[in-house]
């Protein structure tokens, strides 16, 4: 189980407080679909995904991205019990959505890159390290109930 120091928690929560979840969510999901086009396999009914600009401007991508990142907010609130917090979502992603957990790792890394573009100087190596721990913990928690 991943353990966060008090410092890491403070670092994460401080940055999270400044994130525009709606905007960042759309950007994260959009970039995932652009950079790793095979991830589009889960979104056949999203309409036009034919180019980077189509993807980034797609309203369904933005809406779903917001949903995903809002859920990520639960991770920030439950860093001491990620597996518990994401148990139901883990079952959903396995049983209903059939998502390969590798996709969670890809999305986590895309999120880290977006935080870097938004926060620049503030996104120091230490801050990144704390966030890598969190995205890795969330990916593991989401994969935990797979069978």
């Amino acid at each position: 189980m991943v353990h966060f120091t008090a410092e890491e928690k403070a670092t994460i929560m401080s940055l999270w407080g400044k994130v525009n979840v709606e905007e960042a969510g759309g950007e994260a999901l959009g970039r995932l679909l652009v950079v790793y086009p095979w991830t589009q396999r889960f979104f056949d009914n999203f309409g036009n995904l034919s180019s980077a600009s189509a993807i980034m401007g797609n309203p369904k991508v933005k809406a779903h991205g917001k949903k995903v990142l809002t859920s990520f907010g639960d991770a920030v609130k439950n860093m001491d019990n990620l597996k518990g917090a994401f148990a139901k979502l883990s079952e959903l992603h396995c049983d209903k959505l059939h998502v390969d957990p590798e996709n969670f790792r890809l999305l986590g890394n895309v999120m880290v890159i977006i935080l870097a573009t938004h926060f620049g100087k503030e996104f120091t190596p230490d801050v990144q390290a704390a966030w890598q721990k969190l995205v890795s913990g969330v990916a593991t928690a989401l994969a935990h109930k797979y069978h």
Partner: protein
Amino acid sequence: MALSAADRALVRALWKKLGGNVGIYTTEALERTFLAFPSTKTYFPHLDLSPGSAQVKALGQKVAEALTLAVDHLDDLPGALSALSDLHARKLRVDPASFKLLGHCLLVTLARHYPGDFSPALQASLDKFLSHVISALASKYR
């Protein structure tokens, strides 16, 4: 998964913009890698890995030179990186999974320093370029 003309153009344009500062960014990427992914430090027990270390800077410079070589030879990455692949396979024996971690941290570094340039399209092309470099580096492993 070959690099398209558009990929090459984007990568070359960025590299031109980085100019003589590539070493600064590869050094920062190494620093980020060691902090975020401590397992990568196991390859450097003989080095001082603390922030600001001259040895990490020297290592960063080597990585910068290799990447610049790669950018200059996008048409033949396996050929251009053959000697480096031999080195990493026979002598250094770094697990190729670690290359991916450094690659990711390089993307983070570039995103942090060039947010305005770091469009989804550039991110995609850079990610592809780095995965080709990693592939070429690992090509002599077995």
